[in-house]
């Protein structure tokens, strides 16, 4: 059985179905990229996986444990499955260090010193060692997003969900954030990422999934998905993306 398994996931907002029946297997150390038009449900899928949205049907399994439906310990689930948002969502009233150490200190009960050391180490890794005591609004978008990634990593998640983490960034800042993700992929972190950066998806993904009308219409290794897509819809989507200069 796969590490993260999504079975027949169904989700609608009011009466509008967004995810009709999504099934997806993610193995450990795998990087799965979700692509698809705006509104196809990528964010919704990610948010359903760690129960930020309640699902209407189907199941999510993590490491052979059912983590969806009634009675799930969502706080535990979210410690295992971290998420980084398009809009960073750093806490503006806390310094970078406090942002990163809040969850480790309050949930894991780490001592301040231990948590701070760990934060410093992670910040070092993303090239922000000197920003520990700055407030988020004094950072550039790219720096904020790197802090947001570190904040998620500080809980040592087993799976990391990344929701279009570069969409809110100026083009010249995208690379610095993608570099971090590339590094994480290289280190073997299991990741599920929604993205519009096709060339990046092609480079880091082990599997690419094309979402359309609430289902995964087609999936496969990046070479096949980008080089020889089978479905008409996939072709049309990739064609439009190419026309927009994003591939």
């Amino acid at each position, binding site marked *: 059985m796969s590490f993260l398994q999504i079975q027949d996931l169904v989700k609608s907002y009011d009466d509008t179905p967004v995810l009709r029946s999504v099934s997806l297997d993610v193995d450990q150390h795998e990087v799965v990229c979700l692509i698809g038009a705006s509104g196809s449900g990528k964010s919704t899928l990610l948010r359903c996986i*760690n129960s*930020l949205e309640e699902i209407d049907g189907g199941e999510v399994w993590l490491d052979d444990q059912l983590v969806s439906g009634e009675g799930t310990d*969502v*706080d*535990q689930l*979210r*410690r295992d499955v*971290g*998420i980084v*948002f398009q*809009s960073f*969502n*750093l*806490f*503006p*009233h806390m310094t970078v260090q406090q942002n990163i150490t*809040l*969850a480790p200190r*309050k*949930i894991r009960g780490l001592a301040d010193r231990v948590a701070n050391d760990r934060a410093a180490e992670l910040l070092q890794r993303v090239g922000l060692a000197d920003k520990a005591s700055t*407030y988020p*609004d004094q950072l550039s978008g790219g720096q904020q997003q790197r802090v947001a990634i570190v*904040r*998620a990593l500080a*809980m040592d998640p087993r799976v990391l969900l990344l929701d279009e983490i570069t969409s809110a960034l100026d083009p010249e800042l995208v690379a610095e954030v993608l570099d971090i993700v590339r590094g994480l992929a290289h280190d073997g972190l299991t990741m599920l990422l929604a993205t519009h950066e096709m060339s990046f998806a092609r480079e880091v993904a082990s599997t690419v999934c094309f979402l359309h009308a609430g289902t995964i219409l087609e999936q496969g290794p990046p070479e096949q998905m980008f080089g020889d897509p089978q479905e008409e819809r996939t072709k049309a989507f990739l064609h439009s993306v190419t026309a927009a200069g994003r591939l």
Partner: protein
Amino acid sequence: MTTLQKPLNRPGQPTQPLGAATRLTGAATLVAVAVLAVVVWTAVQLYLVAPDSGGWRWVLIAIAILGVIGALAPFSPARNAFQSRSAAVRAVADGDGPAIRKYRSRMRNSAWVCLGGCLTVLVLCAFVLFLLANNHAVQRTFFQPAMISRSWFEVTKAFGRNIFIAVVAEIIVLVWGLVLALARLAPGRAGRSIASLATAYIDAFRAVPAIIVIYLVGFGLPLAHFPVLSSLSPTGAAILALSLTYGAYVAEVYRAGIESVHWSQPAAARSLGLSHGLSMRYVVVPQAVRRVIPPLLNDFIGLQKDTALVTVIGTVDGFTQAKIYSSNYFNLSSVTVVAALFVIVTIPQTRFVDRLLARDQRRMSR
């Protein structure tokens, strides 16, 4: 390509004559002269009553002198207006359109500054005249020096009680209001009944006038023979009553603050595995509290003022003490003293919050 050319002397709008601005300047100067006359007349009145005012004689004379100096101030912009006019007239002679517009607009601005000054002086002067009216009966009733010097010490001492009640009640309200707000926002199905209870409380205590709550608590609890609560001193009862009422107001302030924090903030906190409580405690409430400081202070000023209502249950506060003087001597000057004390304690708080806000603004520009 054809361009439509308008005949213009120099760039921009056609110039209008100086007539309107000149008339405005003239009128402003006349008004300034009239105001000066009224002020001088008032100053003479002040000077005449000064000998009857005992210790306040020099204060009255100082006010008279300051008043006349103030009434002279509008003449400065009036002079500027006339200078601008001379410059404008020269510009008209030179046919320099932009210069005409510049000096004409300066002339108009100076004239309006003069008129604004006149209005201010006139309002202040009217207040002084009001005090002097009817053989300065108003001044003697509200600002009698002898009464003020006789009563101020005892009244100020009793006002300490108002401050004590206000400070203790405010501390309680800070906590109680937050408890109510969080109860009102309690999540899930389990929270629903708690939320409706909190809502009912808030609605009730916002509806009932504070003076009635004070009355009910002050006279009702002793009748109820309830342990501890019934043996509360009048001051204790006042604190309890004001806390009950203002807790409801402050709860609404907190709630508005909490709801104004963008939903993505608690979402980010929850996504890290923080529970609802932890996310409130460390992420939402700290941000909400910063935003609610100004409305919170408004409610606190209201609370401070309402400490004067405790007089209905016989707590001897500043107002009660002042009333004792005023009914013994048929003079309200002691009440003016309490009024002034309320002003004195309120103003620094407002300035303090302005500073706090400015500092926060600098640190987090959102």
